[in-house]
């Protein structure tokens, strides 16, 4: 059990590399974001995320976690500092990053298959080729047989699976997920989380996701970045060491899981109303 509750001082370098010596694929250096109205959403964020891992940005509302994710995605420009992905500075969206949206952002007029293939369609891939690829990922996220349905015929969980298939299909190295499960009901959320653990073993990708659920973060993530609000700062970086490969059911009963959930809650409870 390595409970690395290392506090990161302001302006310090990114936290030391994880025990697994994979080099960081995403680095965030001195990133601040002040909105036009003068609200400071983020202040002096330094982070590094190793390749092939799943990291969670966790914090109470107002901590700027979605803002940080959108800066990494290139959808927002930071007021100061810089982000690099695969060693190249981020100036806008790029093909090495794919985004999964909180409200799914599916085209209501397009079928599941076309939605899943939409990233490839925008990239200019030929129809037959992109549909073949999309069909593969639609099946991989567990929606085989639903290819010709429209989003309004699907439940929230299924819609988000389409969003995930679309992000997987473009072959990005990094998947950025903005509260992917928050609009999904509880049972489906659990099932979806278990499926995500399976998927990330199948796909050799780096995941960075935003959540406000402590359990979700500890259940899924290899690295948890705890943000504190007003302005958003990194308050802790935790690398939970929970075995996930054999039995996804056992994770929630693992003593390490329970201890970390408890430790994070003790840190966060002062932000609760």
């Amino acid at each position, binding site marked *: 059990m390595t409970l690395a509750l290392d506090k990161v001082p302001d302006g310090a370098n990114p936290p030391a590399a994880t025990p697994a010596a994979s080099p960081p694929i995403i680095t965030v250096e001195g990133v601040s974001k002040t909105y036009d109205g003068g609200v400071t959403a983020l202040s002096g964020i330094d982070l590094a995320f190793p390749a092939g891992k799943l990291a969670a940005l966790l914090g109470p509302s107002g901590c700027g976690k979605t803002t940080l994710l959108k800066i990494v995605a290139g959808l927002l420009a930071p007021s100061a500092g810089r982000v690099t992905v695969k060693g190249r500075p981020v100036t806008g*969206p790029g093909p090495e990053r794919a985004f999964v*949206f*909180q409200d799914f952002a599916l085209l209501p007029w397009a079928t599941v298959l076309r939605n899943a293939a939409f990233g490839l369609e925008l*990239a200019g891939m030929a129809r037959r080729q992109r549909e073949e690829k999309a069909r593969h990922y639609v099946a991989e996220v567990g929606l085989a047989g639903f290819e010709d349905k429209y989003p309004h015929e699907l439940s929230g969980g299924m819609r988000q699976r389409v969003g995930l298939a679309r992000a997987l299909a473009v072959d990005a190295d990094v998947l950025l997920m903005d509260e992917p499960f928050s609009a999904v009901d509880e049972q489906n959320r659990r099932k979806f989380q278990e499926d995500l653990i399976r998927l990330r073993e199948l796909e050799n990708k780096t995941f960075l996701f935003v959540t406000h659920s402590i359990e979700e973060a500890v259940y899924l993530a290899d690295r948890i970045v705890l943000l504190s609000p007003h302005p958003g700062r990194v308050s802790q970086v935790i690398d939970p060491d929970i075995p996930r490969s054999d039995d996804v059911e056992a994770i929630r009963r693992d003593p390490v899981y329970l201890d970390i959930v408890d430790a994070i809650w003790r840190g966060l409870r002062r932000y609760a109303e």
Partner: protein
Amino acid sequence: MTVWGVRVPRMASLAIWLVVWEIVGQLDLLMLFPPFSAVVMAMGDVVTSASFAEAARITLGAYAAGLGLAIVAGVGLGLLMGLVPAADRLLNMWVNIFLSAPLSALVPVIMILFGLGTPTVIVTVFMFAVWIIALDTRAGVLHAPPSLMEMARAFGASRLQRLRIIALAALPEILAGVRLGVIRGVKGVVIGQLLVSIIGVGALFQLYSQNFLMAHFWALIVLIFAFALTLADLVGRLETRLEYYAGARHG
């Protein structure tokens, strides 16, 4: 609608009013108000007359041209207002003024500019229909989920591709605007032709009223109403076929 527990089709109320019309007409109270049966008889007369065919041709031509221009310009204007805040600040007030202004008062001015002919009628139809289409398109663009635009950007959509997505996302509102524009356009074509009064149905109205052919006059009105409502209904059907947009938007 149910009356005393019996389901009554919605057209029933129309039938009741037609009966009232017939009774009032048969009482011979007003020369202006022939019984409905006389109007129906006159309708055959009107429809088969050569002057009606000619009037219908001219009217439909002017209507289609004016409405077509209004849809193109209205959707374009609405997209511009929805996408460019500066354009919206500049135009919004004017579009709203034109939407609620009594446009019939403008027709004489249009007549001076475009002459006593079809161009004036086309411009009148355009002026009646374009503003509501522009405002509804603008509302559709502003209603489109912002995440859809972020999605398009995140997956590398070009400007043109993003515009296409916006337009498709706004389609339900655009169609609602077109449906209202269709009805207002009919108003425009009738008012335009009445004021110009030497072409199309305007000339026919003039002809019938000057010769006290009131049954014919009413028959023509009923025909025009039926035309406007049928067109609006067709657009309405198209709208309901796109209902799935709403489900996706609120679901």
